[in-house]
């Protein structure tokens, strides 16, 4: 279904991102090979000028990738109206084996974009550009990711056939299905919630600890950065599982309707938008902590890095609380008003 307007928008966004990052990669190779701040020859001056271009290009590409993630979700939702058997975006994304990987690569790119933009901001704020080489290495790692994204999206769209019957989320996210076709299944609710609660507890405790440390004029240490770097991605993954398996059936008021995408539909009050925005915002703010800790070790970068940290820690907490409130609202209301206890 390459001729669908949604497909064209997705492919257009992918191609333009690739063009931008590709042009930036040429600069990246030169910067990695020849960057020498001490030199004052023509090549260094030109390289310093060129880093502005590569920054602008990559910023553009990454913002475009974020937009394309939103289009991808919208497209999957729209394709559900065209594919036989699909009732929501889950069915459309699992219509062939490239849909879910394409979405995953887009989400990974989103987080990489956040990391790159943070490093770029710190780098540009220091007159000696301490992170320029690191930043350009990262551009070279972004390039295969963008290529992979475009490849997977193209394969997904090209192989999407409206006449092939696909499965719906009732089957895919069911607790256990006889044919074993299940993305998330056989997860006992209580241990899952227990793990999730413990992780949230650790993240909140960590945030308070770091806040107190910063209030006392100390800087964040490697151990805290490590825990944050491990904890927030894990929190993201577990949150998606918890939303799908535990939260979504309460929103739909149907025990067997487990879908992370229908939450974005108007018939459920667009609850998915604040839910996912706060989740992604919290995780992005959370992974900024290890990134800034790492950047702060470069000469001159500490000031900006710590200024970002001072905003990221409370920012992540505030968004986390917003997310948890939205996620818990429907299940709690159901259990309180529905007379379950």
């Amino acid at each position: 279904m390459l001729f669908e307007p949604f497909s064209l928008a997705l492919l257009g966004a992918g191609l333009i991102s690739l063009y931008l990052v590709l042009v930036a990669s040429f600069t990246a190779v030169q910067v990695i090979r020849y960057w020498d701040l001490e030199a004052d020859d023509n090549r260094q001056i030109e390289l310093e000028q060129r880093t502005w271009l590569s920054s602008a290009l990559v910023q553009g590409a990454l913002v475009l990738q974020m937009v394309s993630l939103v289009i991808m979700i919208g497209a999957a939702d729209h394709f559900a109206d065209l594919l036989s058997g699909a009732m929501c975006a889950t069915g459309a994304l699992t219509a062939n084996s490239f849909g879910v990987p394409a979405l995953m690569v887009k989400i990974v790119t989103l987080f990489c974009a956040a990391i790159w933009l943070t490093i770029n901001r710190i780098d540009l704020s220091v007159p000696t550009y301490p992170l320029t080489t690191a930043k350009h290495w990262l551009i070279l790692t972004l390039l295969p990711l963008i290529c992979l994204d475009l490849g997977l999206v193209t394969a997904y769209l090209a192989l999407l056939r409206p006449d092939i019957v696909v499965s719906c989320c009732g089957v895919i996210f069911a607790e256990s299905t006889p044919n074993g076709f299940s993305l998330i299944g056989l997860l006992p609710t209580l241990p899952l919630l227990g793990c999730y609660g413990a992780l949230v507890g650790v993240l909140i405790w960590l945030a308070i600890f770091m806040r107190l440390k910063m209030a006392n004029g100390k800087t964040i240490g490697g151990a805290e950065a490590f825990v944050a770097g491990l904890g927030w991605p894990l929190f993201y993954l577990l949150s998606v599982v918890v939303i799908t398996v535990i939260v979504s059936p309460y929103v739909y008021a149907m025990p067997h309707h487990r879908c992370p995408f229908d939450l974005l539909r108007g018939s459920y009050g667009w609850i998915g938008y604040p839910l996912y925005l706060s989740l992604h915002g919290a995780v992005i703010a959370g992974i900024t902590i290890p990134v800034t800790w790492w950047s702060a070790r470069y000469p001159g970068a500490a000031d900006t890095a710590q200024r970002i940290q001072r905003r990221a820690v409370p920012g992540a907490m505030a968004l986390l609380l917003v997310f948890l409130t939205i996620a818990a609202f429907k299940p709690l209301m159901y259990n309180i008003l529905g007379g379950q206890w």
Partner: protein
Amino acid sequence: MGPGYLISLRRQRNLLDFALGSLWRARWKNGGIVVVFSLVIFIIASFRLMVAGLEQASTAVLATVPDITVQRLVAGRQMPVPLWWVEESGAVFGIRSIKPRVWGYYFHETSGANFTIIGVEDFPGGEPLPGVAMQAVSADEQVEENQFSPVVLGQAVHQMLALGDRVNVSLFRPDLTLKGFSVVGLFAPQTGLVTDDLMVMAIDDARDLFALAPHNATDLLISVPNPLEVDTIAQKLMAKLPGSRVITKAQIGKTYNAAFGWRSGFGMICLIGTVAAFVILAWDKAAGLSPEQRREVALLKTLGWQTGDVMAIRFMESLVVCVVAFLVGTGLAWAHIVFTDGFLFKPLLLGWSVLRPSLSPVPVIRFDDVLIIFVMSVVPYLAATIVPAWRGAMIRADATL
């Protein structure tokens, strides 16, 4: 001074102020770009909004479609359904009602148009088409007086027959004898996509008009109260009635959407050439700096501006151009759909038949559509202006001044 974000906000405001001033100084050049860009966005947006409106209107069609339609195929061709199929289908559990229907096309020589004739049971008592609004034009007593068969017309048919205030009309049977009808109602104009070419009458009258055998119908309309059972019942019917073609409502809806989506996608591919041409124009305009602009950049650099600041100005300029062109283009497209029924693209999306449904696409603006229009127009423009903006900002003050 103030907190960090206030300074940053003030900086952005000053940059925007400078960018607006800069745009105004080159107003003829930028005005030209805005006009051309608005036109490009207008074309893309009209296309997209038109399709969105048609999708919306086609849901009105679905309201009239039964849960299951059963047809009969012989050697791959559609043939009349024998009425004993009604009893045969009745044995399947979960069916609320089975109604035979006769329908076909009637060629009206005077106007050269094809009318769609539908003959249904319970006519004129029940609703001629479920879910479709109708306005009565003559009282039942008048019909009885005339002793003609009652019929309900679509608005376009009513106009084509040039009936005016008259209620009686005659149509030819295949043997060229005349059959008289009295118009008892008209379908409401807003259901045009479905009803414009329709003449709905009693099933026996339709059989009489088409000279169809009394025990035959064109297809069977089956109503199923539980939507979850539709597919199962459809499968059972297919097994029970040899040579039948069973179509469900969901299949028809998906086909409509796929057809509209495909057509609009193809149209958009054709428009990519327009966007590409515009992007080249934008690149060219952004790359060709006048001597004044070069001097301006050199002066700014002397005053301590960095390459990044000049690029930020250029980005702001592009953004202002985009936003203005986007609003103008999309606004014009909306007006095109609302006030002219999308006359530019309607033939492409609806077909060319003589009695084309005179439909008014509902102008719906959805977030998805705006995003698609944005990605197809604004994003290529912004992407194309980055490199020229950087080149323009790289000017060395010593060399230029």
